[in-house]
């Protein structure tokens, strides 16, 4: 005779295996991808050059140099005469985009995950990138937007006239998704990453800290969602205006993301060369 507790345990721990035919993946994905394309009417990559052209033709553009001078004067007054809290988020984001090389380590997880997932990303001086997510190493060239993965991609031919191929990249996805998010339009953008985390962030604002030795060197920024309790904290260096740590938290389920930036370790050329990696792997 089984007790109620036993039944609960039994149902909870059942190993209900299931296998899905590639045809089902094709049927669902080809239709879903078409539906997604129809839903999104405007593609940012297509409209951006048009916006740029529109801005350049606008009469307002002629006033821009004058405005820039005024802003520069105001920043100068603020910078030299201010209390030291003059660093604004835009400066941090801008400096990060122009940093020649860096290493970013990301840990993500939540209350239910026993171990944090670790992703590492390295960027070289010539905008080449190497990423690693525990399963696979990915190489990317931000200038040419080429991405190669050391794991074989799995592609399924679609019957749909719009979506010809459905690319499955099961092992590489996590690192690749982060890489795609950070590496928008050929450069690493912190703003893009931040926009993708807590929903409806109103702005990134510096936090007033006590006048301590650390606060003379480090500035702290906060970003909060307007609709959920999710929030971001970013620590940056005052002098170099570079972020050193970023922390994402969702108190509802203990979801976290810790981002650590390192600018001191310069990797050599072969580190970013997928062919060198393949050669080394085969010789091992």
């Amino acid at each position, binding site marked *: *005779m*089984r*007790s*109620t507790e036993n*039944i*609960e345990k*039994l*149902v*909870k721990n*059942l*190993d*209900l*295996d*299931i*296998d*899905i*035919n590639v045809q*089902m*993946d094709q*049927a*669902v*994905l080809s*239709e*879903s*991808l078409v*539906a*997604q*394309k*129809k*839903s*999104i*009417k405007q593609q*940012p990559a297509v409209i951006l050059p048009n916006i740029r052209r529109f801005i350049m033709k606008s009469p307002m553009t002629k006033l821009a140099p004058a405005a820039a001078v005024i802003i520069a004067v105001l920043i100068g007054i603020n910078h030299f005469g201010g209390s030291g809290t003059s660093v604004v988020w835009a400066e941090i984001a801008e400096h990060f985009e122009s940093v020649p090389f860096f290493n970013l380590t990301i840990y*993500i*997880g*939540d209350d239910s*995950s026993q171990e944090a997932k670790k992703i590492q990303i390295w960027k070289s001086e010539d905008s080449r990138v190497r990423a690693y997510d525990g399963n696979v190493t990915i190489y990317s060239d931000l200038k040419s937007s080429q991405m190669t993965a050391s794991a074989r991609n799995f592609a399924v031919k679609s019957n749909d006239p719009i*979506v010809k191929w*459905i*690319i*499955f*990249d099961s092992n590489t*996805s996590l690192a*690749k*998704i*982060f890489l*795609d*998010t950070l590496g928008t339009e050929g450069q690493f953008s912190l703003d893009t990453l931040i*926009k*993708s*985390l807590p*929903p409806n962030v109103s702005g990134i604002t510096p936090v007033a800290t006590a006048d301590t030795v650390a606060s003379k060197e480090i500035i702290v920024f906060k970003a909060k969602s307007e*609709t*959920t309790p999710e929030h971001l904290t970013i620590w940056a260096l005052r002098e170099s205006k570079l972020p050193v740590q970023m922390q*994402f938290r969702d108190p*509802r*389920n203990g*979801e*976290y*993301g810790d981002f650590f930036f390192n600018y001191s370790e310069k990797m050599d050329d072969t580190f970013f060369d997928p062919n060198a990696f393949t050669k080394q792997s085969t010789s091992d």
Partner: protein
Amino acid sequence: MLEDKVLIWKFKCGSGEALCRIYEKYRKDLLRLAAILSNNACDAEDIVHDVFVTFAQSAETFKLSGNLKSFLLTCVTNRARNKNRANQHRQTDGLDEAESVVSQSKNPEQWMIQSEELRRWSAIMARLPYEQREAVILHLRAGMKFRQIAQSQGVSVNTVKGRYRYGLDKLRSILNGEVEK
């Protein structure tokens, strides 16, 4: 998961790769839930298919305040409930015999391959009244809280707890009956 947040953001920006990744990540959980709720492989495939296509259609307007997996599981549950109602409606219209013949046979278009264990448990669960089956499966297999199930079913938490208790009792008597045989 933070990964889901990035995926949703990319999905909303039009990334097909993000949509593929979401599908790949959750398809098995969703199919398993649909199969056990509907006790019909073809219906389960239809449910998951419809959920994903509808999800993809909402790309531009989609807003998520909670967990992506729970959201998708709730969508599957709602669809399975509607399908079950439609099937019941058909049965009362006198088509039940023809329908049961179809559901027992293996459809040549069927793509999902269920394990023997899943098939057995789907059949056992099908002996519970639908509301009780849903409460037991969502709580024990999908890890949803009674409060969440109550919200998705539009009933009170106590009603869900009652359905869950009755469901477990019935399940116990079915399984104990099997052992005695």
